[in-house]
């Protein structure tokens, strides 16, 4: 066997064609983003306006943060349908805690606890109860919304503490806080998924759960952590959402957020069955959705038709990914 003197891998040897297919398979979402970006700037000159650009970022930040958590859940082979309802519940609880205590810190703390606890319950049902994530989180979706409605008696609750609105409405240089928080969260989740054992374990269990278990990974605990993390990120999104208008609606806040988040994750190239996908992909998936929404508004597409266009884009994205 000694004479198998294998030459070291040398990318320069690769012929152009195989490099191109590699580039496409790894970065198709970035390429798609660039194409959509260029097309948009040609179609409408107002698109490139710096205020419009910042506006897009501001608009995607809440869904973006939710989508980060959704990416982790989907990488583990699950799905979380409860994010929108949990966001509403967290918002309501936050406002109540805020008004009762008068302290912004206590408000934020309450938000983080409620969101991650809801996520923890999701994780418990999936990992220990062996309930399919689709079903478990569907239950949570109904339950969380119902509790939010009950507490707020079906209406909205508004904050009475000065300064709370600063979270979503102040800015640093030209960037609004929510945008900064979104990018910071993206960086954190990226590091978590690519530089720590937690991330490694999530990929492993999403790819082959039995082998992950036989590799001495505590699969159940990782799953619980995954859903808790998703809940925590929903909390962050809920704080921003509540702070933006200083109120939250128990009936309409967060509705359909799960669809937008899942759409962003899928456009970003994460595989539905888990094990494969990237945080960076989700970032660009979120931006693509943001640009589409923005363009449809700029071009006066009827709001009733916007869902159709979005649906089309999602399906196209999935069709392209099938050819791996």
């Amino acid at each position, binding site marked *: *066997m*000694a*004479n*198998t003197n*294998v*030459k*070291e*891998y*040398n*990318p*320069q*040897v*690769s*012929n152009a064609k*195989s490099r191109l297919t*590699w580039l496409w398979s790894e970065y198709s979402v970035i390429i798609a983003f660039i194409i959509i970006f260029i097309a948009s700037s040609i179609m409408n000159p107002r698109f490139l306006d710096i205020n419009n650009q910042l506006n897009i970022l501001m608009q995607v930040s809440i869904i973006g943060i939710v989508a980060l958590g959704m990416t982790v859940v989907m990488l583990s082979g699950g799905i979380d349908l409860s994010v929108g309802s949990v966001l509403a519940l967290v918002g309501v609880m936050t406002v109540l805690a805020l008004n009762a205590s008068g302290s912004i810190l206590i408000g934020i703390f309450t938000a983080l606890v409620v969101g991650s606890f809801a996520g923890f319950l999701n994780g418990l049902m999936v990992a220990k109860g062996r309930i399919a994530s689709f079903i478990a989180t569907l239950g949570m979706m109904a339950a969380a919304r119902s509790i939010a409605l009950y507490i707020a008696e079906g209406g909205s609750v508004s904050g009475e503490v000065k300064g709370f609105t600063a979270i979503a409405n102040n800015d640093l240089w030209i960037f609004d806080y929510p945008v900064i928080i979104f990018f910071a969260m993206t960086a954190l989740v990226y*590091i978590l998924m690519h*530089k*720590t*054992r937690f991330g*490694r374990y999530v*990929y*492993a269990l*999403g*790819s*082959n759960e*039995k*082998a*992950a*278990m*036989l*590799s*001495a*990974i*505590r699969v159940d605990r990782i799953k619980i952590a995954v859903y808790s993390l998703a809940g925590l990120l929903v909390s962050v999104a809920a704080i921003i959402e509540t702070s933006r208008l200083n109120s939250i609606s128990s009936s309409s806040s967060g509705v359909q957020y799960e669809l937008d988040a899942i759409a962003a994750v899928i456009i970003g190239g994460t595989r539905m069955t888990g*094990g*494969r996908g990237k945080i960076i992909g989700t970032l660009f998936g979120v931006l693509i959705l943001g640009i589409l929404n923005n363009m449809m508004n700029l071009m006066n597409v009827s709001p009733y038709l916007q869902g159709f266009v979005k649906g089309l884009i999602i399906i196209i994205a999935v069709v392209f990914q099938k050819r791996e």
Partner: protein
Amino acid sequence: MTQNLYITMENVKKSFNGVPVLKNVNLQIEKGEIHALLGENGAGKSTLMNILGGVHQPDSGSIYINEKEVKMTNPRISQEQGISFIHQELNMVSDLKVYENMYLGSELRNKVGFLKVEEMCRQTHEILARLGVDIDPKEYVRNLATSYKQLIEISKALLHKSTVIIMDEPTTSLAEHEVNRLFELMKNLKKSGISIIYISHKLKEIKEVCDRYTVLRDGEMIKSGNVEQEDLDTITKLMVGKSISQNRFVHEHSFGPVMLEVNNLTSLGLFKNIHFKVKKGEIVGFTGLAGDGRTELFESLFGYRKKYTGEIKINDQLIKIDHPRKAVEAGIGLVPKDRKENAIIKDLSVIHNMSLSSIGNFEKSGFIQDNIERDKFQYYKELLNIKVHNPSITIDKLSGGNQQKVIIAKWLEVGADILIFDNPTQGIDVGAKQEIYQQIVALAEQGKSVIILSSEAPEVMRICHTINVMYQGEITARFKGEEATEEEIMHYATGSKREAAKIG
């Protein structure tokens, strides 16, 4: 000879990402022959067959069937040309039933379009019976032992009226009697004019059933000839470039105190009343037929299965293991069998598969250090001769034997005191086998306890100090390694002899 020529592959070249894997390979298959395709791990055997089977496209070269050129642009076309392919890794859908797997993509339908379930079941049953397998066609595949899955995979290839059957390591999880049945069947197929291309690392099988052979080395065709005219040693030399001794390893080290003691371990329907001890530095083998319960026994010991009674002592301390993590913490490691299902994380890179069970070794203040991982992999790559050009590619791009080596490296890295190997040399070539045995002996010399599970008696006889034979969930005999004979082991493994006195 030429009038009998059926398939010719000419000047086939193939590279992946600029790395040449096949360089000008020629292969000639005659009508009605069993042709052995030989070569060490990563030589390009599966790749060549994937080209014949239409899975991969060659960069250049041509394929002729009956002197007519054919282009195998996809697997369907290859199948229409009468070529059936049994892949190296099993491709069963475990949530489907046996007959549904058999007919996947070619279901039988009646005129209205409904599935002819009973007809499919009947035919499935018939074909399986030819291999001596008696299972319910309506059983879910996930409930079956691996050897059955492999036999179903083989039967699936028989379903189509093929003229050529490619068998890429079909016997890796079969027990000896199942292999013999398969060989009977292959000889019958041959008589009816069907050609078989047979890939295996078990040279004894080659001698027994093959007519001609072709050897590949590093993507080049080295030699073709008649199996009868060569002895095993010559073929080995052609494959790996040197002779490999088949002798028993001589051990010169002495044992330490008892490391692992198992008393009265019982799990309903799987194994019962298991007693054994393993000392430090000892290599203990467990062998038997498929379904003897040894895999389940050690999966229980490793905490993967939880429903068992009895006691496990490590270093004389009673411990309870209910999760593989706890087993690892207690110093037990398990290299599982059937890598595709139990060990390979196909979406992770080669390096990340290697480090998965011992990430602590690669962390600094909570963050994984890529460079430590890379250096460590380099070490194992040289130690086990893992053939990989770029270890950042996903592990499923490696040849089967090289995947197995990565899994072994993964568990060597864990550094367990008690290391269990279940069918460790699955798909590994003769040369590399020897190197893995050497690693195992080296572990024992360092004072580790090693347990080896294998259905091949010669394998345990070559390296083990003590050999346990299991039959239907019980240990029926225990031999000293140097005293065991294959024949004697077979008696106990088949249940024709039981001798409680041997145990103790």
